[in-house]
């Protein structure tokens, strides 16, 4: 037997990067919101200027981000629920490893969604660049 004769279920599966998709979406949403506000206030609106443009922009970012996180999360949830085995997904099989990855993806998506909503709450209350 040599290394290549192992079953390579792994080769077709998503790699560990799948765990990071939703947190990366959160990070991009966060940086875009911060960057848009910073550039808008510094270059265009001035210290007391209106924040309306930024508020609309962040709303759009939020919708896109939540959609992307939602898709990732539902993929993760489906992977977690596949088959008959329940938590804690500690079986020594590629199937349980996939379920674990799915569940972790789902949890990270949930956290990312909460963090995106937290950030989106800010422009609800802040109206100017002050």
């Amino acid at each position, binding site marked *: *037997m*040599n*290394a290549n004769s*192992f*079953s*390579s*279920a*792994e080769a077709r*599966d998503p*790699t*560990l990067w799948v*765990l*990071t998709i939703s*947190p990366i979406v*959160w*990070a991009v949403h*966060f940086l875009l*919101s*911060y960057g848009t*506000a*910073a*550039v808008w*206030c*510094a*270059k265009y609106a001035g*210290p007391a200027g209106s*924040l309306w443009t*930024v508020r609309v922009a962040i709303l759009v970012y939020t919708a896109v981000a939540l959609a992307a996180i939602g898709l990732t999360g539902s993929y993760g949830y489906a992977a977690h629920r596949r*088959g*008959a*085995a329940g938590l*804690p*997904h*500690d*079986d*020594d*099989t*590629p199937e*349980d*490893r996939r379920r*674990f*990855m799915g*569940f*972790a993806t789902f*949890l*990270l998506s949930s*956290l*990312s969604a*909460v*963090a995106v909503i*937290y*950030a989106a*709450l*800010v*422009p609800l*209350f*802040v109206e*100017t*660049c*002050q």
Partner: protein
Amino acid sequence: MIPDAGTTRTDVEPLAQAPPPAIQRGQVERLLRAWKTPTGWRYWSAVNNSEVGLWYTTATFIFLLFAGVLALLMRVQLAAPNNDFLSAELYNQAFTVHGSAMMFLFAIPVFEAIAVMFLPQMLGARDLPFPRLSAFGFWAFLIGGIFLSGSIFFDAAPRGGWFMYPPLTSTYQSGIGPDIWLLGFSFIEIAAIAAAVEMIVGTLQCRPPGMRVNLMPLYAWYILVASAMILFAFPPLIAGSLLLEVERAFHWPFFDPNGGGDPLLWQHLFWLFGHPEVYIIFLPSVALIAMIVPTFTRIPIVGYTWVVLAAIGTGFISFGLWVHHMYTTGLPGVSLGLFSAASEAVAIPTGVQIFCFLATIAAGRVTRSVPMLYAFGALVIFVLGGLTGVMVAIVPFDFQAHDTFFVVGHFHYVLIGGALFPIFAGAYYFFPLINGKGLSERLGRIGFWIAFAGFNIAFLPMHLTGLRGMPRRVFTYPDDLGLNALNLISTIGAFILAGGIAVIFWDLFRPKGRQPYSPRNPWKAGTLEWLAEMPGKPWGVRSIPEIDSRYPLWDQPNFERDVDEGRFYLPDAEEEQRETIVTSPLDARPEYCLRLPGPSFIPLVAAVTTGGFFVFGTFYQWTLAVISLVLALCVIVYWLWTGTAIVPEKPEKNVGLGLTLPLYASGIRSVSWWAMCITMLALFSAFMSLIFGYFFFWTRHEDFPPDPSPGPGQFWPLLAGALLLAAWGSTLVARNRNRADAAGGYYASLAAAIVLAAGGALALLAGPYFTQLDPTTHVYPATVWLLASWNGLLIGVGIIMYLYCIARRAAGRMTATYDIDIANVTLYWHFCMLMAAITIGVIAGFPLVA
């Protein structure tokens, strides 16, 4: 657990019969010879993880004591109003060195040290994939640490506080203190990135066969996350230190408003590092608790996936917090709000893992023990620090508490609860793995209660001291502010805490000659590190097991016996070489057998010569610094030439259990390819920090870039782009020609790449040169020059790599099949090309659209 119908089990069982005793004896002898620790003065050439980890941990503990003594001196000074025990000058040095040493010489390196020592054993690996890199990291750390700590004895230490804000550390400090900080710590940060490379590759590729990601010990998850964080957190500080040092040494005004610079850029870059760093410290420490709790509750951790969520989630969100250190700098309210929101959000994953630990404790039967005592203490203190953290994350409250003793109280609760107590818990738990002997339960309990009480007596009152208005970092205070009693109590508490730590240190370092060896697996734990014999053997693990469970020692029958009798993989060292198994990242399928290097003084010499550059640079002795750097380059090339990418004597070998593995891998399966990739990610994030600087200046100034733009124009940068693109293409051709075993084409395309790359670098520098940009006059030319020079330097290193690859093939050390060198150099050039493209887009393109 209900296994699925149709589950694909690819399990390999250990040998049904143990090899005959004579064969086992032969195997053990060969393994011992391969893994022998050098003796006498050559002991210091050891690179084995158990030795390097031990030196590393010991050194960090000594720095902890040193920084702790400085804290006591400060507390003596503050014990009474108008005290003159320390001068203002010395007090400034004391708090700067205290904070810097605690962070850079204890908290971060101790996590690397502990991981170097125990991670391979937790992963059932013989060692980490780059033992000499670990040794280099340790020596670099030691040199940098002694350099920084020693400066206070010459009245030359930095005085700007551990976050070194300019202009306090530029215009107002002419001595070498800030240079010591900037260069000394840059050196240590390089060591930290080296450790991160080691940990990431180790966790992902050196797990034992069958240890799928859902079976990994939680410690490995935490270390993976913390190491990945280092790659994105440390580079901004390295970039910031580069800017500040260039400003101090060559007067390029990055932070000087007179030249268009802005001190706030430093704060951004520093805290882009500084806040994630808190979690880089916290995660590996709480990881120790995640290993301890299941052992003493006798059940698997409750909510394994939730803890993984907590580690990864915290890792990400902690990068969205940096501005909460800058609430009072006048940023727009919406920016503050965003960072406040993220600061509240990070409390969620942080809390989740603590609830998982509590749930495990509630679900199991807790055995009373000293490690659990420290773990409980840690949780109590950390939760209190976390709660005040949620308070200071709220902007209006922070306006009140900013730069007061409230913050000092808050972060000591976080760091001592989140790092120091867990590390003590880990020390009591893991100590038998170090020399086969346990620590004293009695001393452990006494030390705990004294330290726990002292800590709270010292730091709880500080919240009140701060709310009453006492700013941090003042060397004294007047008599009539109502601060006298609180400060005196804090001082008394600090000495009690020191007494507790003294007891713990006595227990750690007291001679244990007559004490009997601890029984094997004294705590009846379930994870792999407890396979170790008492006292341990240098080989890490006798045979590399096949893993079926998160707690193999609990769940896999006859596991210890099977490992000991060599019934698993690599039970022998037929060629008497150090070897371990490299596996795939998800399911840990064996991929190849990695030969590891043995003892060597090269890492030490490399650290000394590299350190020389930083030490001489501190004193502006640039000639000596450059000589030292050239020497370092020679040593590193020698190291690579003699010790890496060695063509094996046969293509593959039998590693036992009927499995034959290759002895060499290049490209994406190779550990060295990943090491290069990770290193380049770190360099890339440093580069992006410089790009951030460019756009930061754009938002801060009306005239950045100036209109009309004085340089570098478009011609030279675009020419550079074309030449570098051609160099990159030639590199790809060279790699493919080598694979096709076409030596002529390989050499020709590399020669072309050298010429093209050199031309590209010169053209990139020609832009600012011919448009006569003077970097000392204004921040715009300084930024353009810096970006061009950064690329020039990387391209220069890339040219050395080309020459190296030519020599490797010519010397027969690289062939069409064994092509690690050119594969990794190609990867390096992918990143170089990316950075050059971004640079050209920014310096040539942005002035057109701005």
